[in-house]
């Protein structure tokens, strides 16, 4: 038995040590690592009916990945332009949602983090309440607002700003508003946590030295809040790229989200390996993208989740 294992059992007792070790191994290996590897393996296999699995036809193939890039064999186009367009549109939209959230959340987080008083706690409750409501219901609420006869259209038509109902859903405005709405809290809290620990004297000092308010934020607050900002952005980006409920409910009929394609492969086409391949592509691209952006802004991985 290695030394650190022996130490571990000495410290926790054999029974407790085994329980802790067992649970941790089950979680890390059984629930996190093996399923991901299994999915990776699965994505390289052809779609076979259950009796043929493990048979001679069950060989590794790049078919599923080729499908995403080139489309069905003998198809009319050189590239699978439909799926690829959906993929890049999803990533781009997720970036836009992230930036939008950062812009609207930063002032709130700064205000909550730097001002004192009992009303701050009421604000915190008001922030958390929407987050406790079901994701589906939040999307549903926005659908009521953005619908053709919804509150916004009634309001603007009543004011005479436009005459015919504006289709928010077909124009994807409802979708972006819904995605932004869903993950606001995940952006505010990491930034708030960091800004709260910023000594107010630093801001005062900058002000005394004659810095205008925007320069105080640019040179003092934002560099200090960088870990919070990066973990908020990472979470919002990953979650909105992987969102399924909001696009299903708020998305227009013609605009798909990449997760919806994965969902279709699994539930409608019953092509699990193809769906797994798409999921892998989504996961790997998102991780690489996040790592690249973090490298660009010089943030450490260890700061995330703190």
């Amino acid at each position, binding site marked *: 038995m290695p030394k650190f294992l022996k130490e571990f059992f000495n410290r926790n007792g054999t029974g*407790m040590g085994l329980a802790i070790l067992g649970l941790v191994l089950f979680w890390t290996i059984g*629930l996190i690592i093996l399923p991901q590897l299994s999915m990776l393996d699965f994505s390289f296999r052809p779609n076979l009916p259950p009796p043929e699995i493990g048979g001679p036809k069950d060989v590794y193939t790049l078919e599923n990945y080729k499908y995403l890039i080139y489309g069905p064999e003998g198809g009319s186009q050189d590239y699978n332009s439909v799926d690829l367009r959906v993929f890049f549109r999803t990533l781009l939209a997720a970036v836009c949602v992230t930036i939008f959230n950062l812009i609207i959340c930063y002032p*709130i987080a700064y205000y909550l983090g730097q001002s004192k008083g009992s009303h701050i706690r009421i604000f915190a409750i008001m922030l958390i309440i929407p987050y406790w409501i079901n994701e589906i219901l*939040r999307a549903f609420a926005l659908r009521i607002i953005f619908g053709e006869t919804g509150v916004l259209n009634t309001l603007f038509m009543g004011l005479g700003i436009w005459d015919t109902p504006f289709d928010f859903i077909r124009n994807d405005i409802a979708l972006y508003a819904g995605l932004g709405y869903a993950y606001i809290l995940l952006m505010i809290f990491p930034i708030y946590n960091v800004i709260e620990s910023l000594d107010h004297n630093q801001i005062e000092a900058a002000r005394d030295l004659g810095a205008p308010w925007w320069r105080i934020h640019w040179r003092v607050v934002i560099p200090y809040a960088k870990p919070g900002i990066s973990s908020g952005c990472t979470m919002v980006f990953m979650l909105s790229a992987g969102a399924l*409920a909001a696009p299903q409910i708020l998305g227009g009929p013609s605009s798909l989200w990449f997760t919806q394609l994965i969902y279709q492969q699994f539930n409608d086409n019953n092509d699990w390996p193809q769906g797994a391949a798409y999921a892998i592509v989504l996961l790997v691209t998102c991780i690489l993208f996040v790592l690249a952006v973090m490298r660009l802004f010089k943030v450490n991985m260890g700061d995330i989740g703190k």
Partner: protein
Amino acid sequence: MNLSFLRVSIWVYLALFFLYLLGPLVIMSVTAFNSSAFPRMTPWECLTFQWFGDLFQDQRILNGIKNSLIIGAGTVVLSVAMGLAGALMLTQIWPKLRATYYTIIIAPILIPGVVLGISTLVFWDRINRMLGLGADSVLSNGVFLTVIGQSTFIASYCMLVLVARLQRYDMALTEAALDLGATHAQAFRKILLPFMRPAIASAAVLAFLASFENYNTTTFTFGEYPTLTIELAQKVRYGITPSISALAFIIVALTVFFALLNEAKLKRQELVAAARKNATVEELAGKIKLPSFFAGNMAAVLLVVFAVATITVVGTATAYNPAQCIANVKEEKRLEAEQRIQELRKQREEQRKKREAEEAEQGDAGQSAPKPSNNSGFGNVFAPNTLGSGEEESQDTETPPANNGGFGGVFDPNSLKSE
């Protein structure tokens, strides 16, 4: 830019922000009380509680709630246990492994839920096949798969909550217990667990809420056991009704209630502690005069107001009968629809006449022009007999005559035929 302008703009911004955050929930809650069959706030028709009745008779929703509770309970147990084990491991793992280990157990938070659902499904399906079990074994059961899939990432949330408190734990306490002859299990149960209890409670609440509202992972794993969220999603995707708003209203009300309750309790504890601190020696020796329950506790006041409002609403609901109002609105709608049909017919008639007139003009320019009254664009409105016949037709018992007033019989089908 002076200071007062800055302050005003901050408040405006806060107001807009919270409007964006809370407005949708308020509007959704309000639509639960409108009798319109499509959830909407305007036009307001009648105050009704019908949608709540519909909700409680919906078997699929009730079944979904049951499944959600079962899965939630399983997820809470599994993820709090794994989270606690993970947190304990994090505090004593070999330093070289620590960063890797932390990355692994934090990763599920960032992995998209869809990917977690798929990987769980694929992995356990494969295990199931390797063990040679059938399609109806435990391992391919919807409840099992969903609990496993959700726990994968919910345990990470629990771990983060638990590790925050564990860092403040003094290991010397456990060592003292061991020195005094306790077994490891006893030391864990009697020393560490009581210390961790508040964090375990909040981790459990967090885990339950996360499980209850999860959609992305569950949608791949639920099998034969759709949870409430799955049922809701299917309802919302294929036609929406106000009974979903009714459910939303209940959830919003419960959330607000518990949030206020929790806040009031915390504030109360703070106030009591402050009173103890300021008390004089005699007061401490005797009985401390504690501040009254509502003094300086805004959350408690709000809580009471909220409870009273709920009781009033429920009270009204049992006594209130919107049948008359709904009948009126129905009648109004019927008339409106009729009007619209008439308008359409009139337009069509006009177009027809115009065309005819044009044809006539082009066809034989020398002949006499068509009757001017037909071209006027008002159809037969001004013919005296149409008014009379219109009145006669629409002498419905329920309709107030004012509805017919300005339009006369224009919209009556007979007025067109009467020429």
